């Protein structure tokens, strides 16, 4: 009896040690990621916030004295900041819907069953792995007003010569064309998989009921696709707000400031003009706006999913 009791009391600390050990083993899977991202992701964000409330000290090359909202007030008064936000918004409002609609339409085209379908789908991977900076440079050559092949071809149908990089509207169009060329294939690939996953019998039922092509699309296919369309939109949005490489290589924000998207503007202010405190304030504003809009889009896509 007493031996039994002794055994039990002995077992408890051992078991507890085992439980703690198990807990450590469990956490050891997450710890490297948490550690790395705290140092490389969380800390930089807090440091940005710190700089944004300080006067930048050039001698120590770090955050100097606390100045409160001064940098924010200065940035808010800077018309170039607002111009740049406007340019970014124009790009986003045109490019995102264009790419989503185009992506799903192309997916519908290339999903037609024939021998070369697999090959074509594989070929659509190629543009999406071209480095964005290469895409920008490459298209700069194609759109060149003087020697570019596109203007040469447009000449045949009586258009142009278009000054793609000299005219503000055309420069924005050029940026959107390049971005659309680079990113639509990404949406095509997601959409292809989504279209293939659609249940076939629903469409057969619609056909039997005598629904025409248009009403089949709008009342059968689109509702079924809404979750994927919404998710694609959110993913594409997360990529598009980071727009930097293509603009840098193709237009460098020009002509004037016509394509100077916010990331390029902040980059220039920080690393060319060495206005780190103001750039940090702008980065914080952009970070907050992005987070809020991302939250809204996620919420919206959930709601849409429930609706359909």
């Amino acid at each position, binding site marked *: 009896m007493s031996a039994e009791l002794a055994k039990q009391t002995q077992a408890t600390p051992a078991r507890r040690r085992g439980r703690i050990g198990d807990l450590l*083993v*469990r*956490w050891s*899977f*997450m710890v*490297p*990621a948490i550690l*790395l*991202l705290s*140092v*490389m*992701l969380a800390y*930089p964000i807090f440091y940005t916030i710190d*700089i944004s409330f300080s006067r930048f000290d050039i001698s120590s*090359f*770090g955050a100097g004295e606390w100045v409160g909202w001064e940098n924010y007030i200065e940035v808010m008064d800077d018309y170039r900041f607002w111009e740049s936000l406007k340019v970014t918004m124009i790009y986003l409002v045109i490019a995102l819907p264009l790419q989503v609609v185009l992506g799903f339409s*192309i997916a519908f085209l*290339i999903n*037609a069953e024939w021998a*070369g379908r697999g090959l*074509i789908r*594989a*070929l659509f*991977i*190629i543009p999406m*792995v*071209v*480095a964005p*900076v*290469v*895409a920008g*440079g*490459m298209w700069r*050559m*194609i759109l060149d007003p003087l020697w570019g*092949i596109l203007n*040469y071809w447009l000449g045949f149908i009586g258009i142009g010569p278009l000054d793609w990089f000299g005219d503000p509207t055309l420069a924005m169009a050029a940026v959107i064309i390049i971005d659309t*060329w680079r990113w639509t*294939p990404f949406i095509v*690939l*997601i959409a*292809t*998989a*989504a279209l293939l996953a659609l249940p076939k019998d629903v469409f057969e039922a619609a056909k039997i009921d005598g629904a025409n092509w248009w009403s089949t699309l709008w009342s059968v296919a689109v509702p079924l696709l809404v979750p994927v369309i919404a*998710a694609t939109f959110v*993913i594409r949005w997360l990529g598009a*707000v*980071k727009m*930097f*490489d293509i603009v*840098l290589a*193709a237009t460098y924000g020009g002509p004037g400031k016509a394509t100077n998207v916010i990331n390029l503007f*902040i*980059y220039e202010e*920080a690393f060319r003009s060495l206005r780190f405190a103001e*750039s940090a304030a702008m*980065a*914080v504003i*952009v970070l907050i706006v*992005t987070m809020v809009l991302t939250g809204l889009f996620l919420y919206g896509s959930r709601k849409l999913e429930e609706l359909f």
Partner: protein
Amino acid sequence: MSTPISSTAHRTRTSTSHRLRVMGGIAVSILFLFPIYWMVLTSFKQQVDIFTTPPKFLFIPTLETYIEYMQRADITRRLVNTIIVATGSGLLSIVVGAMAGYALARIRIRGAATFGLLILLSRGVPPIALAVPMFLVARKLGLTDKHITLILAYSTFLIPYVMWLMRSFFLSLPRELEESAMIDGCSRYGALFKIIIPISLPGLLSTLIFSMILAWEELLFALVLTNRHASTIPVAIAGIAGDTVNGANWGALTAVGTITVVPVVIFALLVQKWLITGLAEGATKG
């Protein structure tokens, strides 16, 4: 009698629309591939064949530009740097990210889901908000222009990416696999290394390749955190494209561009099957 006729009429109509779809699909893919074709073509041209009206499709190909630019030390060194950084950050992220993804998929830890969500949210952080402090800290610690700095910087967007892709991959595996292994006396790590990793190898390898592609193409951090020794290929391309002093050097642009794109295209086509399913999973579940 009328039914078969109407059905044949219907069939011819669908086959016409089917043919239109096929043709449209081919036309669109040609449209999307042409710019790359044009870049590769231009890279084999001599200067006199590049600036012509009409643009030349037939010419005597030359490797002149390639030889000229490969001999220039900075392109070869940048290429080596890009390989080092892409491999390093890819390997680091696949190990750290896959472990975290496994934890989120399989191991119940209190609070881990919150970290998972935070890491997912970090995909919305604009890189420029990280580039400024990273540059300042790296400068203070004397870490600018080093491979390790870029490798760590790239892990900020690669780890979340790997984590969420591998999480959905691990979730798709049957739970019994590790359970039976652990009943047989395997530790958690034993089960992971002996059972899970071997069967996840194709998924891990494809995710690794895709992470390396993302690192290979990155521009902003490379621009900010390196200047000579550790500088990468995208920085060189940005330099050539933005060189307004010497005018458009299309030969250099297309040759270096082709060097950048070709290996990536080969790797991407190797993992295309997984890439497509991975993308679809990421879109619907991520």
